[in-house]
C-alpha cells in the first residue's frame, strides 16, 4: 500500500468506526486493520502527522457529522467513529506534544454548567489539538468558577464553551458575563448545536463556530 491508499483506508476506518483489528464492529470489516494499526503504519512509513490528521481523520469525521445531521446514522455510530478517531489521535499526540509540531497557544475548553453533552466538545478538542494547540479540557458541567480557575493558571489561553441545550444557553450567557467581568481581555469562543452567531453577539463572546474547523480558523487567526 502506498501512503495515499493507506490514508484512504484509515479515513474509511474512522468513517465506519473500525477502531482496531480486534474490534467486532463493523462486521463487514472484521479481522481487518483498524484506525489504531493503520495510523501506526502511516507514521512508520514517514507520513507527516499533520497530513494524517488533515487528509484522513478530519475528512472522515466531516462525513460522519454530515450523515448524522441527515439522520442517516445515529448516536451509537457517531460514538464509534469518535472512538476510532481517538485511537488514531493517541498515536499522533506524542508528535503534537513533543514540539515536533510547533504549539500555537493554549485553548481551554469545557461544556457549560448543567450540560453533560460532550461528544461535540471532544471532537472540537481533538481537532484543535491536532491543529497545533495545547488543549486543556475541563470536561462537562463546568461552572464559571472552574473556567476562571483554569484562566488564572493560564492567563494567555483562549477559552471555548460548548452548550447543547436551550436551558444551558442561559448558563453559557452567565459564564461569559462572569469571565468577561473579571478578564475582559480573554478571548471567548462559543459553539454547540443551538448556539448561533446572533447569540454569540448577544452574550458578548468573541467568536462562534458551528464546527471544529471554524474554531481552528478562529484560533489560528488570533495568532497569525
Amino acid at each position, binding site marked *: 500500500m502506498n501512503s495515499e491508499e493507506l490514508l484512504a483506508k484509515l479515513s474509511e476506518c474512522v468513517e465506519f468506526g473500525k477502531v482496531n483489528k480486534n474490534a467486532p464492529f463493523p462486521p463487514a470489516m472484521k479481522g481487518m486493520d483498524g484506525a489504531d494499526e493503520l495510523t501506526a503504519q502511516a507514521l512508520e512509513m514517514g507520513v507527516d502527522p499533520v497530513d494524517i490528521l488533515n487528509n484522513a481523520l478530519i475528512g472522515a469525521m466531516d462525513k460522519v457529522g454530515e450523515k448524522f445531521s441527515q*439522520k442517516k*446514522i*445515529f*448516536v*451509537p*455510530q457517531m*460514538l464509534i467513529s469518535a472512538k476510532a478517531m481517538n485511537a488514531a489521535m493517541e498515536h499522533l499526540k506524542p508528535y503534537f506534544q513533543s514540539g515536533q509540531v510547533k504549539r500555537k497557544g493554549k485553548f481551554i475548553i469545557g461544556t457549560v*454548567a*448543567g450540560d*453533560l453533552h460532550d461528544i461535540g466538545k471532544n471532537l472540537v478538542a481533538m481537532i484543535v489539538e491536532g491543529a497545533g494547540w495545547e488543549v486543556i479540557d475541563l470536561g462537562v*458541567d463546568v461552572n464559571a468558577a472552574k473556567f476562571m480557575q483554569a484562566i488564572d493558571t493560564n492567563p494567555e489561553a483562549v477559552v471555548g464553551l460548548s452548550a447543547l*441545550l*436551550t*436551558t444551558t*444557553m*442561559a*448558563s453559557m*450567557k452567565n459564564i461569559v458575563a462572569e469571565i468577561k467581568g473579571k478578564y475582559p481581555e480573554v478571548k471567548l469562543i462559543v459553539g454547540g448545536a*443551538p448556539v448561533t452567531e446572533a*447569540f454569540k453577539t448577544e452574550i458578548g463572546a468573541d467568536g462562534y463556530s458551528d464546527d471544529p474547523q471554524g474554531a481552528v480558523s478562529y484560533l489560528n487567526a488570533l495568532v497569525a
Partner: protein
Amino acid sequence: MKSLAKEISKGRVFVSDGAWGTFLQQKGLKPGECPEEWNCSHPESVFEIAKSYIDAGADMILTNSFGGNEFKLLPYGLHNKVVELNRAAAEISRRAAGSENYVLGSIGPTGKMILLGDVTYEELYEAFKKQALALEQGGVDALLVETMSDLEEAKAAVTACRDNTKCEVICTMTFEKSGENEFNSMMGVTPTDMVNTMITAGADIIGANCGNGMENMIGITREMRKANANIPILIHANAGAPVYRDGETVFLETPDVTASFIKPLIEAGANIIGGCCGTTPEHIARIVKVVNELK
C-alpha cells in the same frame, strides 16, 4: 386493584397531566437545584402542581421523581436519598389524586450510556429497582419509565419494575422525525423496535413522550399501532420544540394547537393523552374537553 390497561380495553380514553419542570421553576426552583429534593423541602409547592392538573380534569398525575435515580441524584450529593425522595414524591401525588385518579411514578433515564462503558446493564437494573420499590411504597398505581432513548436502558428499567413490583408498567421513549413518516430515538431506535422489545420485557402500556409537539405524535402512534394492534398507547407531548428566548427555554405550541391534534391522535390509536415539557393545566383542560366531546 385499579388497572389502566383493563379500562382501556373497555374503550376508555384517559387524559394525563402536563409539565412539572417549568412549573417548579415558576414556583422558585433555581437552576442547579435538585427538583426531587423539593419533595421533602417544599412538599406544598409540589402538591399544588399535582393538584392543578387534577383540577384541570386529568385522570392521572405523575410524580416529581423523573431524576430520582441514584445516578442523577449523585451530583447533588443526594444519592443516598433515593428511597426518601421517591416515596415522598409518590405520597404527594397520591394525596393530590385522591383514590379514584391514578398516580404514575415517573422514572427517567440515568444519563449514563451502556455503549460508552459508563455503566453496566446490571447497575442500571439495580438503580431502577430501588427507585421503583420506593415509588410503589409511596402508593403509585403504575410506574412510568419515560423519555428513554436507549433500548437497553429502557429494558433494564421495565424489567426492574416488572420483576420487583406489583404495579402496572408503562414505558415511553422520545422520538424525533428522521424522514417522511420515519421516527427514531437519539440512539436510532424506531417506534416499531421499541414496541416489540418493551412488550417482551413486560410493559403493559407503551408510548412516546417529549419530542417536538403533538403533531409528530400522530405518526409515531400510527407506527406503534401498526406494530401491535392491542397494546395500550400513552402519549405525552411537549408544547412544541424548545426555543431559546431571552435567557429562557420556551415552548410555543398553544393549547388551541395541541387540542387540534387530539382527534386524529385518538384515531391513530392513542389511549392515554397528556403533556410534557411546556404544557400547562390549560393545555390539559383543552385535551379533556376534546376527549369528552368525542365520547
